[in-house]
Every structure is written in structure tokens, then in C-alpha cells.
């Protein structure tokens, strides 16, 4: 299981966001360059269609591979009231043959993306990861060197934290309160609920940039 919120920020304010995150998290950012290959099952396979994401971390000296399945979101009145999405998520590190295996099992390429940016991993009531990245599409199959942004000038911010059925309410609480610190720069909400950029972002960014980072909160 994981808790997730997302938001968007203009690329011109990413540097300010980075300064803010650096202050809040107290850890160094990690660069991110992930090739995300989304596969869908053939029409005859399974009674319902299934999807997997194959992630290739291109930032490592030797690319490393992960396979991830994102399942259904928690439903019900309780789920609607919380501002964070809680959903099932299973992932596994795998050896490099993963794409060949899933093709052989009857999965087909649906789409692929290249995410370029950075992330922060830290502990603050929960194990939280903040990822800031541009989402890029490839003009030719698997051509990660020739990727172009899907939304030029706009980057995606994702805050995720692993959770279990027993712990998710504490994790939701930790993620929500962390997101409040980012409110001047961006609004984070459940994926699929789009809120656009925040009107105070420019002013907040200018303040962060002139402060040179300020003191950690």
C-alpha cells in the first residue's frame, strides 16, 4: 500500500522548491532519470485487464530495474474524506530480463515515459519521498536520448509514502501535514484531481530565492 498526492509547478519555480525541500527534509536530493515502460495485458489474458510498470533507473552506473503494479484505491466514505490517495502498490527489484519476460507472458507496450528530475527521501512521521520531475515522451521506441517534455514549462511533484492497512491513517496524517509546508509554492491533491498552479507561487519562489535557502524548519 502507499499514500500519494500530486501537484504541478512551473519549471521556473523548481529551484525555489528545491531550496524549500532541502530545508524541510535535511537530506541531499538524489538525481532522478527513470525510463518508465507501461505494459498492458493482451486482450485474452486474465478476466480483467492488468497493467505493470517497468522502471529502469538510468541514473545508476549500471541501469537497475523494478517492476511495479499499482492497484485500486481505497474506497468508501472514509476514503473520500481524506485528502491523500491510499492505494495498493506492489513492487519488486528485478534483473534486466524483465521486459522480455513480460512480453513473453503476453503483455504489450502501452506507453513509455522518461522522468527527469530529483527526489528527496526522508523520515517525518512516515517514510516520505518527494519527487520533482519533468515527464517526457519518446519520439522513437525506447529512445531515451530523444525525449521531449509532455508539458513544457510544467513539472510534476509527487509525494508518496509506503503504508499498511494498520498504519495508513498515521501515514496520511504525516503526508498531509508535510504538504502544508509546500502550500505557498504548490497545491498537492489526489492524482486525478487537478488543481493547477498556485497563485502565490511566484511570490513564494522569489522569497525563497532571495533568502538563499533560509534556515530549516
Amino acid at each position, binding site marked *: 500500500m502507499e499514500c500519494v498526492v500530486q501537484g504541478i509547478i512551473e519549471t521556473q519555480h523548481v529551484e525555489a522548491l528545491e531550496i524549500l525541500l532541502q530545508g524541510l527534509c535535511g537530506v541531499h536530493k538524489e538525481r532522478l532519470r527513470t525510463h518508465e515502460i507501461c505494459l498492458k*495485458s*493482451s486482450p*485474452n*489474458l*486474465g*478476466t*480483467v485487464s*492488468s497493467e*505493470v510498470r517497468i522502471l529502469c533507473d538510468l541514473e545508476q552506473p549500471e541501469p537497475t530495474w523494478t*517492476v*511495479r*503494479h499499482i*492497484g485500486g484505491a481505497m474506497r468508501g466514505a472514509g476514503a473520500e474524506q481524506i485528502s491523500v490517495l491510499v492505494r*495498493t502498490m*506492489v*513492487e*519488486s*527489484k*528485478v*534483473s534486466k*530480463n*524483465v521486459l*522480455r*519476460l513480460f512480453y*513473453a*507472458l*503476453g*503483455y504489450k507496450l502501452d506507453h513509455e515515459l522518461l522522468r527527469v528530475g530529483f527526489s528527496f527521501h526522508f523520515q517525518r512521521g512516515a517514510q516520505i519521498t518527494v519527487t520533482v520531475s519533468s515527464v517526457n515522451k519518446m519520439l522513437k521506441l525506447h529512445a531515451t536520448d530523444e525525449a521531449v517534455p509532455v508539458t513544457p514549462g510544467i513539472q510534476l511533484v509527487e509525494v508518496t509514502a509506503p503504508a499498511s492497512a494498520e498504519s495508513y491513517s498515521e501515514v496520511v496524517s504525516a503526508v498531509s501535514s508535510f504538504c502544508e509546508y509546500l502550500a505557498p509554492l504548490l497545491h498537492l491533491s489526489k492524482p486525478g484531481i487537478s488543481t493547477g498552479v498556485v497563485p502565490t507561487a511566484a511570490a513564494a519562489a522569489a522569497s525563497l530565492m532571495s533568502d538563499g535557502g533560509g534556515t530549516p524548519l
Partner: protein
Amino acid sequence: MPLKWVLHWQPNAGSTVNSQILSEVSQCVESINGVKEGRWRATLTFYKPHTREPTQASEFPRDFLGISLPEQPNKYYLIIRGQRIVLEADSSIQTLMEKLQSYKTRVALYFDGFQYQLGDFQLRVGKVVPTHSENLRGIVMEVEYLPISSMEKGRQVMEEFVDIWQEALSKRSLPGHFVHIEPNFADYGLADSYSSQHSAVQYATVMAQLIATVQAVQSMRS
């Protein structure tokens, strides 16, 4: 990682495997001064494609296996033998496959028995049984040579050991013998330096042999 050969028991034509043979094999290891250590267990699962119509299943691989090995408690190995594909994954891949619901477990087997130390060799003798029954389907034996991880460099010492072992076992006049079939690891993209992926491929190969033996017996009877 030390190199290893996985052997399987090949019954003579007209005979089958039984627990008496297993007992004799274990006693033979001890008679050549193998020191009994502890138990070991590997698991092999056959997956079958889950399709809306049964006839559609033939579009998808029928030889898709999952293997767990005792020396890698946090890993799981997926193999499609016909296409020479092996994948090493975290154990969570089993949960991931369950969530996908595209493949279901058809049958699962244990390779289960005792481990012995014999000088620079580690031996494992194991019965092959379905997970929900004690019906003996086969016998396997692992021969691991601890000092060497290169399969080519270790080949001669392994052959010599297996010759000695076969000779010791032959004195018991059992209705069969152990066989070692080495898969073409290069076909699976595996190198000369031994790894758990090599073990997974050997178990998949042994399984194919056991199935072929059972099918041969069945066709003789019918």
C-alpha cells in the same frame, strides 16, 4: 557463489522412484563420510495463463515457472523454459503476480531433504513431492563445490566427484541412477560464474526431465 550441479534420479525402464531408494541414497552419502547438517527446501510452482476462454490459453506460455531457493530467502526466480528466459526478483514478485491475476498457480512442488558436508563439497539430497501430498515424484541431489565459482574451472573436479559417488551408489544395486544434464546457460544469458539464476535454470530443467519420465511411464502403461 560456489558452483553447483543438480542431479535427478532416473529410474530404470519399468521401475519407479520410491522412499526406499531415497533412504538408500541418504545412507550412501553418510557411508562416504558425509556429515548430516540440516534440512533444506526449495519450491517450484507451475503457473498457467488465466484466460476468459480455455481455448485462448494456448496463446500464452505453458512452461512458466516460479522457483524459491533456500540460499536466497528474499528472492524468487521466474522462468519461461521454452524461451530460455530467467528472471531474478524480490520475493514480492509473487504478490505482484497474484494481484495481476493473469497467471494462476497450477501445481506447486517441494524439493525437500537433508544437507551434508563432505570436505569441500556440500551435498543435498531431496525428495520431490507436491506441496499438499507425500506422493514421491522424484529424487534430486545437489553437489556444490565450495572453492570454485567458475563452471568451466570446476568441471573436472565435479566430474571426478560424481564418478566416485556413482560408483559408491552402484554397490547398492538400486533400480536407477543419478543423471546430470547441464542446460545451455548461455542461452539464458548467464555467464560462467555460478549464481542462483543458474540453480533456478537447473531446477527447471530437472523438472522437465521428471515430467518426461512420468509421461514415458504413463504412455508405456496405456
